[in-house]
């Protein structure tokens, strides 16, 4: 038996333990700290995910309205005496009739319709009836008649674009109370809109025009669309793809397969990693100074935007291409060299095809990044108000155009709050494109990725 000295000092800080199974206070404290720490981690992830969900939720909530638009469908009589005073149905002569006259036609037919349906609304003025239609509706009607002169004299059931405030009533943006204090609409208009809806003359339906139409001026948000912006973005993506993919792949092949270890190679490597971290707006300044002021390329043109975005995307593509080339095992190269292929043949016949899925994935991700980029495009004049579609490439590359993200910025700068709905809608379109590109990248990777 061992002698246990009874006067051993008690352990400092740790009270005598009754049993191993009941944790003492210090252990409890440590365990509590442990679970607290874990909770912080979970909270951090939850906060990040909540932010993501909230962001997407608000964008979709605010923007889904842009895809639906209110149209008026009442019979409109196209009076020959108004649109074709000479009566010879010659489109060239009818083009002399101003848009204003078609507005009068629309207003007249609405007045007739109100009388026929026996709607009586207190305080309904002529101005209320005139401003019921979008300013775009008369231009649309005029274009339709000019394209098809046989319509003159007939009565057509035309879906005409309703004004922004009328549209807002159907989307909850305008209420009876807000209509009373709004100088661009009135309570009478609100009541008329309700009456028309009940009789089926006013309805909201899916709005293809939002995707296809060009931008519209400040006072007709209901007619503003993304056509020019989507076309401009598509042109720029085409330029980026055609330039950045070959240049990026060539650079990566050189650096990964051929470059000797020397000062020049180091310089190239440093430059690439640096360019990846340069703020995007600096690329915009480069585009403005080098491409527009020095080389004399036109402002607002997709060619300049495409060049700037190419330079911006190159580092992304180079980095992912180099990773893909690195992943091809050396045994492939050795085998090709061993049967007598030259270095160049080895790379182009064997290494590059095997690395292709990785390269394409990286390229698509680079393109997605370029598609969402806004700041550099602001500096090269893509904010300009453009309502004509650019021509087909290659001439169209030099025409003025907009771009999807810039169109969003543009709409946030307008005074009428109806443009915010358009901006959010444009973002939904932008995100849909990005989503599709990322899904494509993931599918490519899943489908063709090899593991050695």
């Amino acid at each position, binding site marked *: 038996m061992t002698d246990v000295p009874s006067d051993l000092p008690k352990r400092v800080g740790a009270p005598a333990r009754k049993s191993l199974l009941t944790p003492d206070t210090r252990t409890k404290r440590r365990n509590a700290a442990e679970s607290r720490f*874990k909770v912080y981690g979970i909270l*951090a992830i939850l906060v*990040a995910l909540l932010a993501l969900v909230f962001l997407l939720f608000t964008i979709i909530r605010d923007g889904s309205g842009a895809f639906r638009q209110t149209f008026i469908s009442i019979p409109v009589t196209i009076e020959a005496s108004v649109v074709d005073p000479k009566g010879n149905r010659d489109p060239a002569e009818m083009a002399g009739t101003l848009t204003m006259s078609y507005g009068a036609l629309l207003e007249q037919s609405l007045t007739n319709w109100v009388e026929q349906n026996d709607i009586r609304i207190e305080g309904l003025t002529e101005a209320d009836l005139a401003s019921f239609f979008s300013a775009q509706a008369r231009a649309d009607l005029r274009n339709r008649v000019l394209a098809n002169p046989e319509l003159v004299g007939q009565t057509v059931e035309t879906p005409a674009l309703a004004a922004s405030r009328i549209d807002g009533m159907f989307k909850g943006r305008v209420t009876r109370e807000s209509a009373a204090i709004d100088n661009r609409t009135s309570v009478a208009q609100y009541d008329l809109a309700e009456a028309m809806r009940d009789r089926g003359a006013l309805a909201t339906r899916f709005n293809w025009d939002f995707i296809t139409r060009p931008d519209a001026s400040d006072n007709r948000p209901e007619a503003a669309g993304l056509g020019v912006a989507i076309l401009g973005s598509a042109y720029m993506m085409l330029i980026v793809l055609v330039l950045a993919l070959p240049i990026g792949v060539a650079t990566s092949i050189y650096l990964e397969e051929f470059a000797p270890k020397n000062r020049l190679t180091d310089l190239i490597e440093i430059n690439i990693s640096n360019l990846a971290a340069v*703020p995007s707006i600096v690329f915009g300044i480069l585009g403005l100074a*080098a491409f527009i002021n020095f080389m004399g390329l036109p402002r607002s043109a997709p060619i300049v935007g495409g060049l700037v975005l190419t330079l911006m995307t190159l580092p992304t593509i180079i980095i992912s291409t180099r990773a893909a080339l690195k992943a091809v095992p050396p045994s492939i190269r050795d085998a090709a060299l061993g049967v007598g292929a030259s270095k160049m043949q080895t790379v182009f016949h064997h290494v590059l095809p095997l690395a292709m899925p990785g390269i394409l994935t990286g390229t698509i991700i680079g393109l997605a990044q370029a598609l969402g980029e*806004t700041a550099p495009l602001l500096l090269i004049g893509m904010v300009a108000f453009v309502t004509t579609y650019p021509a087909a490439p290659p001439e169209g590359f030099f025409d003025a155009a907009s771009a999807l993200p810039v169109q969003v*910025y543009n709409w946030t700068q307008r005074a009428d709050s109806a443009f915010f709905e358009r901006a959010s809608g444009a973002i939904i379109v932008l*995100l849909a494109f990005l989503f599709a590109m990322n899904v494509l990248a993931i599918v490519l990777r899943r489908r063709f990725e090899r593991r050695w």
Partner: protein
Amino acid sequence: MSPFWIMMTVLALAVLGYFLGAARARGAVGGDIRRLHSRPVYYGWNAAIATAAPALLVLLVLMLALPLLAGEAGPGASWLPGGAALLVAAVGLALALARTTPQYRARAMVERAIKVALIGCSLIAIATTVGIVLSLVFESIHFFQLYPWQAFFFGTEWTPSFGGGSELGMLPLLWGTLYISFIALLVSVPIGLFAAIYMSEYATPRVRSVAKPLIEVLAGIPTIVYGLFALVTVGPLLRDWLAAPLGFGNSGSSVMTAGLVMGIMLIPFVSSLSDDIINAVPQSLRDGSLALGSTPSETIRQVVLPAALPGIVGAVLLAASRAIGETMIVVLGAGAMARFSLDPFEAMTTITVKIVGQLTGDNDFSSPETLVAFALGLTLFVMTLALNVLALYVVRKYREQYE
């Protein structure tokens, strides 16, 4: 003929050269291609490259040079680049065909040309940097000739007016930039770091495989989306629920709005960088600490994080550089008033906002009000470059080497 069609003609000639070259090589040996030095395709490529490469180069050089010499050459010389290019293409094609003999080392020539092209593409990265620096420096020098540099770097007033007599002091913009970036880091660093720690140390593979890509979705969202989010949702939310009830003023766009939203944007940046770094800490360190009886959180705080610290500091510095250069969120969320203030609910402005402001719309490149944007751009470029270099330096110098 437009340059585009000249280019197309040259390329068509090159295609013709490809077939002629290959056919000539085959013909020279009577179809017995074993007697050729290279395979016939290489003779074809050789002819195509000899046709197109010099011609396109001549076209490019003349097109760039002519506008500079326009005064001497006059308007009649517009046919010169196209004519010269077509001539060079024809000569190149003829020469290449004349040299196509069975002994000609066509493959070596083609491979040399490809290698030159590869090096040329690699030099674009350097050219881009040089272009950025040149365009910033030249216009900045131009600006400092019109406006004293002391007043720009140390001025505390920012009141540009195109009529003249404007004060273009950078300090209020710098203050706004740093303040917003600071708030963004305050949001993103703790959240990003804790998310990274949880995902690399605690999360089961299943949770990780869901949460990690979802957080990285935040990084794939374009900044204009965050900008609109700040403008339409977060700004009014902060104003109505926090600033106005507490009496902090009622500005929708504020330092807080921009900082908060930018912080959300930076979360995936911080978390994925830190995640990689934490995963790089060897498992043996954790095992040693756990075996000594520390809890997992004690292991993380006292063993893993110190080992990963240089990398995490590097990640934070990179995030800071991102925050300083970020444009769309501050353009839409921070406001346009240049001022010094500590109140986070007040609208302030940043360097990037003013670059956009001074360079959007019609510019007069002889007025200091426009040119100041280039000086601001130079400042921004130098600041982000310094942060990136510092980040690299910290990581290289203080990285713990294991094994």
